[in-house]
């Protein structure tokens, strides 16, 4: 998910960099308040831990290996604000010394992997853990949180890639940076993350958490209770943001034209040159209509779908936790 330089326009990089600066500022402030000066070295050591986590090759079926990002794990272990700083520092070292991820796109990479990933992952974990009060609930939170966290980060990266051809093209209409529109970028990024990377991340996070909980239960970060309010804010923001990202898809359809996309499908498949991750990408058109509600403007449709989706999830968790309470009542 490390975006190299020259795929995003400098303007996009600057905008995302500007978006991350306040997050860093808040994180530093929070960390200073939350952890005493005695624990300041922990930030650096947390960063090296997160750096090394990405070096761990996890076996995948078929003899291949992949690696986890560990953003949600760090957020659960150290708290989301410390995780944000730690992952940012790890990303800076990768960009500066190892050529992994760009220098200009550092802000974008931090936005995706140091902000979106740990915060989404952590607040989902916290939300579920506070609702389903049992060990199972905790692990459910970890698995769902880390899975959604990494996929949310991949979605952000995909949107950043996908808006490039809309915004930046030369006089002849040629894309100046990443040439793939949202209709290609989103499935190309999300399908491998939904199928493989997300599963690796979730399994690894849960396994390490289980180990640490068994060996040294006192070391796990205890977030303040009122944190679950923040998750409502986060959810609201995400709902409002869904059309923002997907709004651009609408423009993309307008600009690229269905005929052009048809051409891509026939050419691409006929020539068989499409990299693995993109192979399934072109069928995205068929999946999309499911998310828009017919008869109303597309944007409104997206918001409605998002609200409904979140509501359904909330309802499911409420029911699950109430069932838990009931069974407890019976036992008592």
């Amino acid at each position, binding site marked *: 998910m490390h975006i190299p330089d020259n795929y995003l326009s400098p303007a996009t990089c600057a905008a995302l960099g500007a978006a991350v600066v306040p997050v860093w500022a808040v994180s530093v402030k929070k960390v200073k308040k939350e952890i005493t000066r005695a624990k300041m070295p922990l930030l650096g050591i947390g960063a090296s831990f997160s750096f090394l986590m990405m*070096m761990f090759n996890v076996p995948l079926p078929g003899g291949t290996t992949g690696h986890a990002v560990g953003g949600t794990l760090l957020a659960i272990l150290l708290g989301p604000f410390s995780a944000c700083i730690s992952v940012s520092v790890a990303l800076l070292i990768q960009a500066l010394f190892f*050529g992994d991820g760009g220098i200009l796109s550092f802000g974008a990479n931090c936005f995706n992997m140091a902000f979106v990933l740990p915060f989404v992952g952590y607040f989902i974990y916290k939300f579920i853990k506070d609702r389903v009060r049992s060990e199972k609930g905790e692990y459910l939170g970890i698995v769902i949180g880390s899975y959604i966290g990494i996929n949310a980060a991949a979605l952000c990266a995909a949107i950043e890639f996908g808006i490039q051809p809309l915004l930046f093209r030369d006089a002849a209409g040629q894309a100046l940076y990443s040439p793939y529109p949202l209709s290609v970028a989103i499935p190309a990024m999300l399908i491998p993350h939904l199928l493989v990377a997300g599963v690796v991340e979730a399994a690894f996070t849960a396994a390490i958490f289980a180990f640490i909980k068994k060996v040294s239960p006192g070391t796990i970060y205890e977030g303040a209770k009122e944190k679950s309010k923040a998750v409502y804010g986060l959810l609201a923001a995400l709902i409002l943001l869904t059309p923002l990202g997907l709004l651009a898809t609408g423009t993309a359809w307008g600009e690229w034209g269905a005929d052009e996309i048809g051409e891509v499908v026939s050419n691409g498949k006929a020539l068989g040159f499409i990299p693995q991750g993109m192979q399934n990408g072109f069928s995205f058109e068929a999946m999309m209509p499911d998310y828009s509600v017919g008869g109303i403007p597309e944007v409104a449709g997206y918001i409605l779908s998002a609200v409904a989706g979140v509501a359904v999830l909330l309802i499911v968790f409420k029911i699950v936790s109430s069932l838990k309470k009931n069974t407890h009542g019976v036992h008592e």
Partner: protein
Amino acid sequence: MPEWLLKDENYQPLPDRDTFIDKSILSLLRILSRIRAQSGYTGGKYSVHAPWKVAGTFLLIVLLSLSRNLWFLAAVGAYLLAALSMMPAERILRILKTGLVIAFFSFLVLLPSFFMGNRYSLVMIPLKTLATVTAVGILSHTTGWHCVTGALKSFFIPDIFIFVLDITIKYIVLLGELSLDLFYSLKLRSVGKNTGKYSSLSGIAGTLFLRSKEMAEDMYSAMECRGFTGSYRVRRRFRFTAADFLYVMVHAAFIAIFVYLG
């Protein structure tokens, strides 16, 4: 001599797959050797000061990213090759290898877009990526990491950030060695078929985390004993050398070329 010792035994370990251990060991070793090698770079007598190098590299990357002109790219490429040519062969190989692998990967990724009618990106993006990665490679292979982190101070980056960055690099080495040892022992203890190997992986990562927490506490105690008050200062002496002058002139020339070519 007991009899069982004299008996011929033919133990054939069951075949087992442990590529993930080997791969993890390799990637850890690569990181460690890279950081160790880099801490030795001090730069010769005539070398350019790190703040200029960091600023120059950043400038080149911005210009490369903005430019749409193949000739500008060619000019930067020529300069980068010239800079590379003054380095030892082993480092040249490393820098070029990283750059070519990433450029080839972007070429593959962009190939489908060629059939969508985007000739521009297929040529420009891999070339720009090659140039960018080479520029960063030259910076990181000629400058010790402590010089780079020190240089960040010149760009008004907060002390706490530089402090964290410094600790991070040091502890990547310490914790990297620790996890390397853990991986070695997992490999040594996995004789024949070891089915519990996968769960050991989370044990390694978990141990690593617990150790890093202990180390952090120890480090703070050590720092406090030595009078650390929480603020962090970078001491610098700075003289403008002939090499600095040349470096700045070359990069000023690039701005001029960029403006001229548009």
